[in-house]
């Protein structure tokens, strides 16, 4: 067993509680410990990524290995897909934390911020690694409850309202998920994901599991803010402090929403045509409606939040197409292309949406406003913010040579190969709408004539903030390399294999 796996959860937990205890006694302790923790986690994730090489590791907590084919203990599973998620979570976490070093200095109770940040990372790492449903639920609650607190961190009127809304809808989602888990436990007598798959393979009553699947889609759809369930996201993501918005939009909705949906629907449930249609159409609806809603926003962070919904629509649609193509069974290359495009777009979105929220944070840090109408002419005053946000905007709208172009291209090519011509057309149209609202953002924030405040006095943001932005902007370019077949073969292929050969997950885990 690989002893590093449980440390992904244990290390951030330890530093969270150390920060609360020692943060009051030693000045500046939290500013030192929290980035160090994330750095260690990132190095561990990258090490696992290089050493894994397409295999999967399972870790039995407390040495409780299953007896006679019944896995009784808690299992952590590290495979190609989860290790990729671990890398994204800890990378974006590290960058956002480094950015916070100067951004968060204006708030009181800094130590609590860093402790909650470590908790949110611990929860997400746990969700990604967990091999059984109930643990997944517990870790999900750890990360989501810390995010409720972090959204309300500004303790202003709008922040508290957004956090309350988020809590009500998040609580509803958790209830639906818990109900679904208990229904599954009732029927299959197990909560281990691989074991449930084996039970389902032996035969199951379809109507019951359709109900469970609908419950899970609504629950995790609420967490992932797919369109009919998106009401909390624009408020929560725009009111949180900007590094937290980057974390929420960049990785939280993926780790606790999309990732879990994908994992459960590929590796736990048996595919069914109706559910695949539901997933695909939800993806298409969020993609189209999210982008149209983003077009009319004047608040920078609300615009970015709606654009998150739209981009997540792309990912969900790609996975839905993948399931549909796998079900048809005659066109596996297109299915691989669709799933690979979905994973690739998920990684890219974490990077450029993280960067865009950090840009919005820089604007807010210097101007104290999020309203686009009160900005303008900042390209001279804030060159780093301007350049990096231009790169991120081009990337998210799908302009070559940035990474967003390639992932969207792969999804569209997959749609055409799989004969989903309508979806391909919609994806292209939404991409153009995305370009439109990001050009609006660029024009009103950076290139228009100055409005309101005197621009001359505004300076560039301090070093930690500008460094984080430059780092992510470089990553936006570097991730384009994943479009090269030989590179994607080593990086994305293990993750795709986990989802394509969906039977392997259940057979390898039980076989320990």
């Amino acid at each position, binding site marked *: 067993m690989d002893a590093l796996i449980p440390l992904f959860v244990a290390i951030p937990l330890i530093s969270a509680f150390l920060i609360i205890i020692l943060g009051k006694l030693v000045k500046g302790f939290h500013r030192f410990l929290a980035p160090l923790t994330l750095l260690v986690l990132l190095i561990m994730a990258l090490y696992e990524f290089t050493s894994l090489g397409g295999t999967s590791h399972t*870790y039995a907590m407390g040495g409780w290995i299953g007896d006679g084919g019944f896995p009784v203990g808690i299992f952590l599973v590290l495979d190609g897909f989860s290790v990729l998620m671990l890398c994204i979570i800890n990378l974006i976490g590290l960058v956002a934390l480094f950015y916070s070093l100067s951004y968060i200095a204006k708030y009181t109770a800094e130590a609590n911020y860093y402790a909650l940040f470590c908790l949110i990372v611990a929860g997400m790492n746990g969700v990604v690694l967990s091999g059984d449903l109930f643990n997944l639920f517990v870790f999900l609650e750890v990360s989501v409850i810390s995010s409720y607190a972090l959204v309300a961190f500004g303790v202003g009127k709008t922040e508290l309202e957004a956090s309350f809304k988020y809590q009500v809808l998040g609580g509803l989602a958790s209830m639906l998920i818990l109900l679904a888990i208990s229904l599954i436990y009732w029927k299959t007598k197990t909560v281990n994901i691989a074991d449930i798959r084996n039970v389902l393979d032996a035969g199951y009553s379809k109507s019951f599991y359709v109900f469970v699947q609908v419950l899970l889609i609504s629950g995790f759809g609420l967490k992932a803010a797919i369109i009919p369930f998106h009401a909390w996201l624009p408020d929560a993501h725009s009111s949180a402090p900007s590094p937290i918005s980057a974390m929420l939009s960049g990785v939280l909705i993926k780790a606790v929403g999309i990732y879990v949906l994908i994992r459960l629907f590929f590796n736990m449930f048996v595919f069914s045509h109706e559910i695949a249609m539901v997933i695909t159409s939800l993806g298409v609806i969020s993609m189209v409606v999210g982008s149209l809603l983003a077009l009319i926003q004047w608040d920078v962070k609300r615009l970015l939040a709606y654009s998150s919904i739209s981009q997540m629509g792309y990912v969900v649609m790609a996975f839905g197409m993948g399931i549909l193509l796998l079900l048809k069974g005659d066109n596996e290359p297109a299915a691989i292309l669709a799933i690979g495009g979905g994973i690739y777009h998920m990684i890219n979105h974490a990077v450029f949406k993280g960067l865009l929220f950090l840009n919005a944070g820089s604007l807010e840090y210097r101007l104290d406003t999020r309203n686009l109408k009160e900005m303008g002419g900042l390209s001279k005053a804030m060159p780093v913010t301007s350049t990096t946000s231009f790169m991120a905007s081009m990337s998210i709208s799908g302009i070559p040579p940035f990474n967003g172009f390639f992932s969207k291209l792969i999804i569209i090519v997959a749609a055409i190969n799989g004969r989903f011509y309508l979806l391909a057309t919609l994806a292209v149209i939404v991409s153009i709408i995305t370009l439109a609202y990001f050009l609006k953002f660029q024009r009103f924030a950076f290139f228009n004539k100055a409005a309101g405040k005197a621009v001359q006095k505004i300076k560039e943001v301090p070093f930690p903030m500008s460094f984080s932005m430059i780092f992510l902007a470089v990553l936006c370019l570097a991730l384009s390399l994943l479009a090269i077949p030989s590179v994607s073969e080593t990086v994305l292929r293990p993750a795709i294999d986990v989802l394509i050969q969906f039977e392997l997950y259940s057979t390898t885990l039980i076989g320990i």
Partner: protein
Amino acid sequence: MEGMSTIVKKVSQLVAGIIFMYGIYIILHGHLTPGGGFAGGAIIAGAFILLILAFGSSALNLKKEVAGSSNTESVAILMVVILAIMSLLMGIKVFFTNFLPKGEPGTLLSAGVIPLYNIFIGIEVAGAILTIFLALVIFKEESSK
């Protein structure tokens, strides 16, 4: 918040000690009888809350109490994680595994590390519930000013 009458104060003083002992009993016998860290911790917190309700918050320095209980809570949960990590470092090198002698089943000193986990979880739960209660009291006092 004002305190209550002398009768209430006296009775709660008498009862609180017994409730506290009962909480400790539940925690220590967590591996033998129903209950354990969470239930016992909630009972212990109940003993403190009873006293605070009877004597009133004006008898306390609330900020100091909150700092104390939240520190206790953090130390306890840190100890739980450290115990889990100790399992990783000792013995068969598995996270959360047992590294103490198991003892004779049914006696108080048995079940390896589980009683230790129960004790620290009990302290953690008591500290957490007390912190939440005190935070609500502080909120009430500040909003009534």
